[in-house]
Each structure stands twice: as C-alpha cells, then as structure tokens.
C-alpha cells in the first residue's frame, strides 16, 4: 500500500518519480549507445571479412 502523506504528497511523489526516471533514463541511454556501437562494429567487421 502506498503511504499517505498528510501534506506535500505531490511534491514528495514527484521527487521520487524523478529520482527513479533519471537513473532509468540514463540506463536506457547508455544501453542504446552501447548497442549501437556494438552493432556498428559487428557490421564493419563483417564487411571486412567479406571484402
């Protein structure tokens, strides 16, 4: 059950939401960059082996 705050509930939840979204977002960003770089490298290596 979610805790109920008497006052400032909106502020508290917003802060915790941002506190979850930012690390998660950075993780997604890092993941995408890593995947794209790996894929690019694999593609270039494959081309090199073919050519």
């Amino acid at each position, binding site marked *: 059950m979610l*805790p109920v*705050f*008497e*006052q*400032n*509930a909106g*502020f*508290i939840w*917003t*802060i*915790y939401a*941002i*506190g*979850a979204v*930012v*690390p998660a*977002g*950075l*993780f997604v*960003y*890092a*993941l995408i*960059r*890593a995947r*794209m*770089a*790996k894929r*690019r*490298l694999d593609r*270039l*290596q494959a*081309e*090199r082996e073919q*050519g």
Partner: protein
Amino acid sequence: MIRAFANPHRFMALSRWLAPACLAVGALLMVWSAWQGLWVVPQDDYQGGDIMRAMFIHVPSAWLAMASYMGLAATSLIWFVWRHELADMAAKSIAPLGAAYTALCLATGSIWGKPTWGTWWLWDDARMMSVLVMFFLFLGYMALRAAMETRQKAARAGAILAMVGAVNVPLIKFSVDIWSSIHQDASVLRLDGPAMPPVYLTPLLIGGLAHMIFFAGLTMMLMRAEVWGRRGDVLIARKLSGS
C-alpha cells in the same frame, strides 16, 4: 585491477561483468533506500514533516554531482599526464551522466524548496548555487568536446577545461558560501544542523552509495560503447586507406 583501467582489452573483459553487477547492485540499493524513505522512516516535524523524505533522493544526487565532477577532473588529469586512452573515454562518459545528476539535484532541490521555503528557487542557498555553476561546467565541457574537429583535439581541449574548472571549483564554492552567508536568513533549513539519527542517516548513506555504484556501472557502459566506437573507426580508416 589498476591495469584493467589502463589496458582496453582488460577493461572490456572486466567491465563485461562488473558493469551489469554495479547496475544491479546500485538499483537494488536505490530501491531499498527509496523504500526506507517512503515507508519506513518516521515523519519528522522538526525538519518539516514528510517533505524531508525528499532528502533521500536530493542529497545523494548532490553528492553524485560533486563526485562526478571530481571524477571528470581526475580522469582528465590522468589522461593529460599518462595519455591512457581509457582515462579520456572515462572523462567523456562521465560528463553527460554528471550533467544529468546535477540537473536531478537542481530539480529535486527546487521541488523540495517550494513547500519548505515557499519558493521554487532560493538564490541564497550556497549549495544550490554551486551545483548550478557545476551544471554549466558540465555543459561547457560537453559543448567544447563536441565542437572540436578531431577526437585528439577534443580530448586535449576537454582535459584543459576540466582541469581549469577543477581548480576553480573550490574557489567558486568558497565565494558562493561567503555570498550566501551574507544574504541568508536564519530561517533556511540546514540539513546537517542537529546530528542525524541513524534511522535517517543509514538510508541516506546507502542511497548515496547506491547511486554511486549505479553511476559507475553507467560510466562503464558508456566507456564500452566508446571502445567499440573507436574500434569501428579504426576499421573504417583501414577501409578508406585500402588495406
């Protein structure tokens, strides 16, 4: 272990398991700390009621902001002196992460400030102002690297800027402290006023550790992306030179 950070191959082997491990451990500790902050920790009327729960997110992000700038400066110095390519990749990777955490700190601080001080932004708070300046230092670093023509130049320019910024940070902090001590009135809450009881301190410290470990994992991931990117560039260069 140190050699793993000088040698790209060893780094890739190490980070292959270490990066996910850091991300997982960091995430778990973050969840624990948040759970403590939201459910377990009792309300404290002295600190302003429930809103002080914000500190479990805001304070770790502030620590991360400062620590990541120091990391940026340290890796820049290491690269500048020893030219370990990995150090430069670390610096390049830390910058956007540090900027994001700095922004997180400013945002959560602002939202915390509104019900506490009645205003979205308090110019008088020395820490907020220092973090704001640090945000611009990160942005400037990223903008400068992006503007340089070659990767080598980007690394060199970035290193110079990071080191110049680093020696200025204590001065900036000092000057902002003096400035805010003149303008600040006594009603501003001091987080570290009375000694913090363990029920608050432990989740706070764990939260800080959690974000730091997670940050390390993220940095390693971006460094891996950088290593792959540069290997790809080498292949392209070879292709163009016809070998």
